[in-house]
């Protein structure tokens, strides 16, 4: 009996920390408006975020907050959240399953993209699924979003922190950018 009481007390304590989880969920469902339920986007120009690596999510959110990484909209939003909230959101969405977007791709561009992305595989993996915990999943991400994201890396006027990515993106022709986006978008694994 004694243990049941203690167990109850400790469980209550744990539920205390579960309340923080409740708060995380209440916070996270406001992200659904733009990024979809469980971070699975159905808008071709909005990225899916459910299942992206925790450290990647946390890093970009903090970089946006600090202003060291350019964003069109997210920077203004994320400045409203504490670092603890940012960490909780990153953890929350990283635990959701990664779901490749249902989209049709152009086989010709995909074939070209496969060639072009050979130089990307070192960091991003062959299919865009690096799996190293730091690099975002590109496999099955929305093609239009990937193409728009490349715009940022290709424009020197905006702050993007990864010099290597910047160099690589600027080497690509317009058609290559499309092909790369289509290739990764077409990958399911």
């Amino acid at each position, binding site marked *: 009996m004694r243990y049941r009481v203690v167990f109850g007390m400790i469980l209550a304590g744990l539920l205390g920390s579960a309340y923080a989880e*409740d708060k995380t969920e209440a916070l996270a469902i406001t992200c659904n408006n733009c990024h979809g339920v469980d971070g699975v986007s159905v808008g071709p120009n909005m990225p899916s975020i459910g299942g992206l690596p925790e450290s990647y999510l946390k890093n970009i959110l903090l970089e946006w907050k600090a202003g060291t990484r350019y964003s069109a909209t997210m920077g203004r939003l994320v400045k409203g959240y504490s670092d603890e909230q940012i960490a909780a959101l990153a953890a929350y969405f990283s635990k959701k399953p990664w779901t490749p977007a249902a989209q049709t791709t152009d086989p010709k561009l995909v074939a070209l993209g496969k060639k072009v992305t050979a130089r990307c595989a070192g960091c991003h993996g062959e299919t865009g699924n690096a799996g190293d915990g730091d690099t975002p999943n590109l496999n099955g991400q929305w093609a239009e979003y990937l193409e728009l994201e490349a*715009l940022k890396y290709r424009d020197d006027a905006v702050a993007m922190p990864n010099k290597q990515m910047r160099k690589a993106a600027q080497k690509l022709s317009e058609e290559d950018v499309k092909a790369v986006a289509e290739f990764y978008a077409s990958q399911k694994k």
Partner: protein
Amino acid sequence: MSQFTRRDFIKALAAAYPAAVLTIPKAHAASKARVVVVGGGFGGATAARYLKMMSPTLDVTLVEKNKIYTSCPLSNEVISGFGELKDLQTGYDGLKKHGINVVFDEVAAIDPAKKSVALKSGTTLAYDALVVSPGISFNYGGVEGYTQELADTVLPHAYKAGPQTLVLRKQLMDMPDGGTFIITVPKGPFRCPPGPYERASQVAAYLMANGKTKSKVVILDANDSFSKKGLFEQAWKKFYPDMIKWVSGANDGNVIKIDPKTRMAYTNFGEHKADVLNVIPPHHAGNVAVSAGLANDKGWCPVDMLTMESSLHKDIWVVGDSCVHGELPVYAAPKSAHMAVTQAKVAAGAIIAKLNGQPAPEPFFVNTCYSIAAPDWGFSVVHVYRVEDGKLMYVKDAGGISPIETPALAVQRKLEARYAEGWLRNIMADAFA
């Protein structure tokens, strides 16, 4: 359980720990409570869906008049022809699949004392909690000479998307080059604060794209400023120089009367001749909310800013355009779809907590509102709110409008124009799918 040993305790603890951390305990006592949601727009649909997601055993009924919902966001792009109405429409099958009873009917009366909703078909729904999200109703008398009949036929306001949107599009297409398209804006607050100005931009985009460059767009405004003004004016100068003219309330822009036959708009001291006359009449909380005694003397429904529960009737939560959520200058929610959806999620959490006899959880509100001023030229306003001393406050360091001056203006505007579309797809799925 009486044989609960120390070893069992440790095992149970080990098992409970990840469970307690990873899964959030949902509602318990609320299980069979009845929640009725009136109005199946962004606010109502989201409330119904999230109530069911947060507490699957709840008995949730959504009452909605129309079988198809048409999004107002991005409907200005239908007027200009850059978008299609069918892409803004959705039915209610998604909500039905979640186990929500969707009833296509109209509300005859809400009785807050008896906690029941009478429907026009004769059915009466009893509730433990009621969500009211009817959007807006128009005060046609606010502009002399304007009527609902005119709105439904020859003078569409198109400020509820649907058939009127297409009538206005047709009128724009039929307008000869050199014509004047007049938009009249009522005194605020009104739904979608940047809506009239985005509409003016879209009309101008159509005119430019179709070689009708001698035409004019005139905004006759009862107000002295408007949402994202600097961003709109920058876009107008760049894409439609001298085409769009904004007349503020202080400059006699307030339209008090129209003549539907001659398409004249009259202000206190002046008159304006239109080829297309688009009157946006003043509006207030949806009539069903007003009839239920949920509105204040200004026609909007005051609510507790942390829970969305009505300040006038308990156990009724008002979300979306009908509510007046907070007071300027500290905090006031714009009447946007994004706000309605976040309010609905907060209301859902507060309802379940109250049904369980628990305090309402800390609410999180955020607003993002995109406008598209020209093809691939979009911008936004963002609000983030936080509870301080029991009140909602804007987080000062966050939010605000898109930068007006930036080295990468074209990239910024292109991204946000595209995001507007992605936002719509996701917010519609969030509410209805």
